[in-house]
């Protein structure tokens, strides 16, 4: 019998040597007493922690409010990922400076003020404005690619 199997037995976790341990306990009163005491400790800990295990009582409205906050945070995270994706597409075609300016101008046109303040509901409008700005600055093929990527990102997020 190894130590590990004893630990498991005392903690009520099944192990391969359970029957060997049980057989030993039949003939050894000292070990039997130890096991009995350990099990009593286990029970006392279970009893005294029962209410805590049931969880902190949180009302459904509180959970719903917390969930909405968390989802809003994830929404802004998802928007920044989408913006990053569009930027990575634009930068090799139009250059770093032009891409940054185009994205900022498109965000401004949907009243976001800055790409950071962009909201999920204004995403499609933002993509349309970006399309027209990129068409003017870098040509229609690049603008078309931007629109397609923007639409696809919106679908993926939904």
């Amino acid at each position, binding site marked *: 019998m190894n130590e*590990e199997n004893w630990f498991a037995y005392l*903690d009520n976790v099944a192990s391969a040597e359970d029957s060997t341990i049980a057989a030993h306990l039949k003939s050894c009163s000292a070990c039997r007493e130890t096991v009995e005491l*350990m099990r009593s400790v286990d029970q*006392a800990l279970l009893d005294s922690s029962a209410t805590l295990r049931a969880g*902190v009582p*949180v009302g459904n409205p509180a959970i719903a409010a*917390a969930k909405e906050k*968390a*989802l809003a945070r994830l929404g802004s995270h998802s928007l920044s990922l989408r913006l990053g994706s569009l930027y990575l597409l634009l930068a090799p075609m139009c250059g770093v400076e032009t891409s940054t300016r185009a994205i900022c101008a498109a965000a401004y046109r949907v009243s976001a003020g800055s790409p950071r303040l962009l909201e999920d509901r204004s995403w499609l409008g933002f993509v349309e404005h970006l399309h027209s700005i990129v068409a003017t600055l870098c040509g229609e093929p690049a603008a078309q690619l931007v629109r397609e990527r923007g639409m696809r990102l919106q679908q993926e997020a939904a």
Partner: protein
Amino acid sequence: MLEAPNIPETEAVATFLRDKSEQAFAALFEILYPKVLRYFILRGTPDAVAEELAQDVLTAVYRHSDALRDRQLFFGWLFRIARNQLLQHVRKHHRKDADTIAIDDLDTQSAGRMRTEQRIAGSFREWLAPLEPQERQIMMLRYIEELGYQEIATALNIPLGTVKWKIFRSKAKLTETLKGSRKETEPLETSDERRKLVRIPG
């Protein structure tokens, strides 16, 4: 608002890890939020901070679920994130090296504004009082968060053998407490012993 169906915990975890959709996350959030909140409250964090930290933990779960290598250890991973968030919070607000602070002892600092759950925790804490801070942390994860050995090892980033040994050692220490409390409540057997306590007039 995303409406989450009423589904069991393990199913919610499995669905989220498979789909990683906001819908699945919303369902998981409803199940896990009270547990994560309890984790922080029982470690002495004020309510408003506990709520904020619980949201941080769950959004981290959403963002970093790809980093979870073994799905069986989801809860160990979840409470590891919770522990890290708590350590970060402690570092920021106590301006000490967080490694020198026993998280488990934080609740003594908020004794004046204990809420019901912390008072209920009293008897459990009394039981754990003879243990060392790390042993108490392990026992709390075992008995309150109901984590398995391997999950505790993941949550605390310690070897599995250490977890097993510490649980065994903790219980062995607590048998002494149990023996002591049994002696106190044992009925006095002899009339001499009874007389020592009861004064008979005349």
